[in-house]
């Protein structure tokens, strides 16, 4: 069963003379429980696809289907219970004056949970942070710990699909390994589907089953990871990308 289906997606910014087509006719499908990667250089539109799915880029056309329901311009609350996003920069994506407890508690309350206290405890355990971090503020946490809080916040509504926008690019390699392991464990435990954006082919090769290569807003190639490992890209641009990163 497909978890996410994107067909003919166009995203643009500005109008008339200043119009920029950030994504052009992108189509792909992510199966339930799969982990799908989007790679490409900056400006290729990979993050814009995630933002369009999430409703953060309002000017789009085409069709996005999550589960069995087509996504409309105005997203119902149920949508956000199903889809959540983790952003690139853990230093910018947490409110500097809200404690970890407030960040997670607010999200849980918005989604109508009643047993907030028990759930905050469980979420912190799930992401490997433990209770002593519950009443800390973001500036008292390291980059890796902040990203764990951001992941905990995304997991709070018990989503089925997680959109990961370069979740480790702001972190050190040793911390990156911890976060990638955590994401792999969580996917197994909660039966999650991932759509992951990264410019690092080795990270995508580690985390994903299939990937799409993007260039100038277009998907030039969709391949599985076995082909990536065997450096059997067919499109010249993906070959170029592979060579540059080995």
């Amino acid at each position, binding site marked *: 069963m497909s978890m996410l289906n994107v067909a003919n997606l166009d995203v643009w910014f500005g109008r008339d003379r200043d119009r920029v087509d950030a994504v052009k006719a992108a189509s792909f499908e992510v199966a339930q429980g799969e982990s799908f990667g989007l790679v490409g*250089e900056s400006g290729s539109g990979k993050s814009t696809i995630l933002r369009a799915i999430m409703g953060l880029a309002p000017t789009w056309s085409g069709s996005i289907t999550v589960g069995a329901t087509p996504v409309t311009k105005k997203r119902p609350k149920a949508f956000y219970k199903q889809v959540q996003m983790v952003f690139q920069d853990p230093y910018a994506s947490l409110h500097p004056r809200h404690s970890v407890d407030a960040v997670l508690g607010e999200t849980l309350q918005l989604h109508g949970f009643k047993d907030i206290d028990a759930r905050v405890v469980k979420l912190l355990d799930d992401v490997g942070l433990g209770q002593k971090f519950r009443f800390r503020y973001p500036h008292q946490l390291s*980059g890796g710990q902040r990203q764990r809080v951001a992941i905990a916040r995304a997991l709070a509504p018990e989503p089925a699909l997680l959109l990961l926008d370069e979740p480790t690019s702001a972190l050190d*390699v*040793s911390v990156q*390994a*911890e976060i*990638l392991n955590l994401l792999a464990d969580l996917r197994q435990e909660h039966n999650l589907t991932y759509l992951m954006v990264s*410019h690092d*082919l080795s990270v995508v090769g580690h985390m994903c089953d299939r990937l799409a290569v993007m260039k100038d807003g277009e998907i030039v190639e969709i391949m599985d990871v076995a082909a990536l*490992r065997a450096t059997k890209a067919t499109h010249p641009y993906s070959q170029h990308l592979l060579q540059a990163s080995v």
Partner: protein
Amino acid sequence: MMDTLLDVENLWVKFPTRQGIFDAVRGVSFTLGRERLGIVGESGSGKSMTGRAILRLIRPPGIVEADHIKLEGADLLTKSEKEMRAVRGQRISMVMQDPKFSLNPVMTIGDQIIEAYRLANKSSKSAAYAKSIEMLNAVSIRDPERVMRAYPHEMSGGMGQRIMIAMMLIPNPEILIADEPTSALDVSVQRQVLDIMDKLVKERGMGLIFISHDLNLVADFCDRVLIMYSGRIVEVCEADKLHQAQHPYTQGLLNSLPRLDAPRDRLEVLRRDPEWSETASVSGRI
């Protein structure tokens, strides 16, 4: 015998805090010849602080202490602030991580490069303009006339970084300190910027200190590598032998990288040994 450009002996960088003095760099010694010297480590390992301390760019209340920091025999620590200004940019240049925060946002690229050039050389405006165009060409920027008229926000990250390098190279410095010059760039652009720096080191005989957290990049690009951990050098090795590194910290860092050619279910997580930060710094002198 390679001639020594820079000689750093027992460098400490200290910051007084409410909890006592924090040592960001603890007794680091190394020399730099006409080579590409890499400094790698995680964030907080003191690698950027080492680069800034050489130029005495650590502001009070931060304290820089060393037995000596000698630039071709002259100790930088005994120089006055005015004399240091003749060193910074003219003899030792620094390229910072993010071009967005290093260029003046309200001045055109051209005005900034011309200003840098005329500070270093007495020359007319038109001569400075011609020289600036030549520098932009040297860092492979297409259409330099247009770029000279443009403002920094109109440039992409890769172009911004190349403009920074062009500006740094105008006074023809002996040493270039590059602090994560490519971490904000895409892989394909990364290569171009590295090639430019490589060419300059070879052609002009500059010494390069390349600060980075990317082990593979450093192994590929540099001649010699210092590996830093909590303010100390834990290992020094030839860059092409980095993958045979002996220290458990270096090995741990290398193992925590995902690799395309060797897939694994789980990545190895670095286990930190408190002993690493206790053992004395390894000397990076030749």
